[in-house]
């Protein structure tokens, strides 16, 4: 916006005050140099546009957005049904799915109707020739319309809908007849993460077993998932990927270690580069990572069947990284060998599923566990191996009450 009038005005200033001349030249020269470098940046961008590289970038971003849209459609069952072509196609019915998986990529899937769930009910009995402790099974309960992300410890990912995993026989549940998402050489399956709601969150946090975390914008993560690689999130050779969790920037991120140390911090304060946020003992490792803000309570399950309840307000958010963590267990209990197998933020109507050392998989209402302070069916001789919580859909609960009303 330098017009001839302005130039005349500058000349007038120089005529009135010759000392201003030097300043004017300096200011204009600085501006010219700034504009020249900006022009160079724009020219480089133009070359990218002309060569099509920019177009490729945009195409990749569009593909990623389309992918996210597809996920959302699945989540809300909003896929376009073409009645003329497939008149017999039924709308998908949402059921609860229990996944049992291990580091070898073996996945067992059981389907259950949430209406019929009874606290303490045995969902299945896992038969295995090798002791369950050696296979480190993990549990996950999700909706049948969910999209899953298989996260390997190399940072590789595979995404697929739950429905693509074949159903296992609940009467004969064993690792011999499983679906396998096969790891590559030297790879192990670290976690399976539901991602259908990922786009509703601002950030994703990747955690490692040794207490390292990495925060990323959920939109960036989506772009990485489209390329089947999100990074391992580990720095140390002895460390391994734990998993992912999603949240808003003001949510409280929580990690719980097996020996009962807790790290918590607001998401927007977490590091974007991989950083060690909690210093764990040599024998300790993280067992759970989750967001706690919107749930009022936390529940910790120990391997000997104790259900420890704390209010979320009990958490002391860490002020810095590399903290020792907030202890949950007393020194005596820790030395006595008490270990945490899982932790979760809960609401009153939440449910949990626990894998016992003998292979029994049972379902519990978490409010009852909280009230009792222990897992009712746990036997002192058999330790608990894995724990996961889930939220029964509200619509289903209405059906439950309708059903019980009919019975009465």
């Amino acid at each position: 916006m330098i017009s001839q009038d302005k130039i005349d005005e500058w000349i007038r200033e120089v005529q009135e005050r010759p000392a201003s001349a030097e300043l004017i030249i300096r200011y204009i020269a600085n501006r010219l140099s700034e504009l020249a470098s900006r022009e160079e940046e724009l020219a480089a961008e133009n070359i990218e546009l002309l060569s099509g590289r920019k177009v490729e970038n945009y195409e990749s971003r569009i593909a990623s957005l389309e992918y996210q849209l597809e996920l959302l459609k699945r989540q809300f069952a909003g896929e376009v049904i073409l009645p003329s072509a497939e008149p017999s196609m039924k709308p998908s019915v949402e059921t609860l799915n229990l996944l049992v998986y291990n580091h070898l990529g073996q996945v067992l899937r059981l389907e259950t109707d949430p209406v019929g769930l009874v606290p303490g009910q045995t969902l299945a009995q896992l038969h295995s020739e090798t002791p369950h402790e050696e296979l480190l099974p993990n549990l996950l309960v999700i909706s049948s319309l969910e999209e899953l992300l298989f996260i390997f410890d190399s940072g590789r990912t595979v995404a697929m809908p739950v429905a693509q995993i074949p159903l296992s026989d609940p009467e004969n549940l064993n690792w011999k007849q499983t679906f396998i998402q096969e790891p590559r050489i030297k790879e192990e399956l670290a976690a399976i993460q539901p991602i259908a709601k990922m786009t509703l969150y601002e950030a994703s946090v990747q955690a490692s077993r040794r207490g390292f975390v990495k925060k990323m914008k959920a939109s960036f993560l989506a772009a990485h998932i489209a390329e089947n690689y999100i990074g391992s999130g580990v720095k140390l050779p002895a460390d391994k990927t734990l998993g992912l969790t999603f949240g808003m920037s003001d949510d409280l991120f929580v990690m719980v270690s097996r020996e009962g140390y807790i790290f918590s911090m607001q998401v927007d304060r977490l590091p974007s580069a991989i950083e060690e946020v909690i210093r764990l003992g040599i024998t300790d490792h993280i067992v759970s990572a989750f967001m706690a803000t919107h749930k009022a309570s936390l529940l910790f399950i120990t391997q000997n069947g104790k259900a420890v309840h704390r209010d979320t307000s009990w958490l002391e958010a860490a002020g810095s990284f590399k903290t020792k963590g907030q202890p949950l267990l007393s020194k005596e209990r820790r030395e006595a060998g008490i270990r945490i197998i899982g932790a979760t933020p809960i609401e009153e109507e939440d449910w949990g599923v626990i894998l016992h050392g003998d292979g029994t998989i049972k379902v519990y209402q978490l409010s009852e566990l909280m009230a009792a302070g222990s897992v009712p069916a746990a036997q002192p001789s058999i330790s608990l191996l894995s724990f996961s919580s889930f939220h029964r859909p509200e619509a289903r609960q209405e059906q439950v009450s309708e059903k019980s009303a009919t019975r009465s």
Partner: protein
Amino acid sequence: MGLHVGIDFGTSNSGVAIYRGKKIHVLPIDAKNLVPEVVKTILYITRDYRHFIGQEAVELYYKQNINRQRRFVKKWTGEIDYHGADMHYVRDVYVYVDELQPGRLMQYIKTALRSEKYTGTQVFGRFYSLSDIISTYLHALKHRAESLLGEEINGVTLGRPVSFSQNPDLDRKAQETLQQAAIEAGFKQVDFELEPIAAALYYELSLNKPQNVLIFDFGGGTLDLTVMHLGDPHTRRVFASGGISIAGSDFDRAIIQKRMLPHFGKGAVQQDPEIISLINIIPDWAALPELSTPLAKTALERAIQAKKSPVRLKALESLIFNDLAFSFYNMVEATKIALSSQGVVVAAMKEKDLDIWELYTRSQFEKDILEHQEQIEKVLMDTISASGMEPGQIDAVVKTGGSSNIPVFIEMLGRVFGPDKVRSSDVFNSVTAGLAIKAYQTM
């Protein structure tokens, strides 16, 4: 016994000073202001009746009002009687009130003292009389000063113009309202001094014989001129006083009008009254947050889509919706201040979608405020004439206030009275400093 301070309760800016017999301390009463010794006479009352003054008030006003939701509801405010030749009827009057308004901003509070009819205003559910408004402001000022001094303040010497009004009753009433407000604000002892006398007190201390002096008090909101006889407190006499509502903030507005608006599309956008009206509101800092409505955003985006000067309108959108107004007005004021000491300055601001770079010279500035210069010179000559003196009979011109440092006005005073007669005050704000001296003498 508590402290006794001097307070200059100005139309646009205020200040607090204390004198303990050795040195005058004009308190840095507004740390957020470009000049901390001066606090804007602005009061912001939030919906939950919290009070803020100065830059803090401005910042909160911007923060709460930019991009906020609005919901207008029709409210009955009164009725109008219509009397015709053979008929009489009454009509109801309604106004549209924004019921989501988070707070109320008040400026030019002192001007209300001159009004015969103004008694106060309704702020949400509570009525604030004029005395309540002023006392709220003075209370906040007192609280800040006490925090800085670490001691309780009991007494105050307040400045007042030579006359609030030509009507003696109204003049007395204005001073009584101000006194009542000061007492309500927590000052146990309140007295007054004429602002021009306060401005001259510091100068008077250096005199060894009586003089005819022109006080040229040129601050942020007004120019106040007083011709008086000084040197002996017993023979002090005001010959004439005058003034005009032109000062620093008008020069800021002139810079924005002439140099900044083209960066936001002025001249480039034609035949789009909606957008042109948005651009023309920029010089009014208090009105800018009111533009951040979805309607304005839609209008801007429509114009940008239509490729009507898209880069400049994107800059306008950024100014309105990205909470940049505060930095923008500060940048303009800093540019003006810098031109008092150097011939050239760059007014620059770089934010998202906004890149202002304006090489601005002193001669351009003088050209931009030429109209104001002429008005000021006229008021000056009128005041001298009203005093019954010739410029040659004025022994000294004491200039005070931030705007009195603008070179073109120093030259004007030198041209009219002779450069050797123009004296600069040793302290930043002579009125505030003089009031502190008066407060010390009163104790």
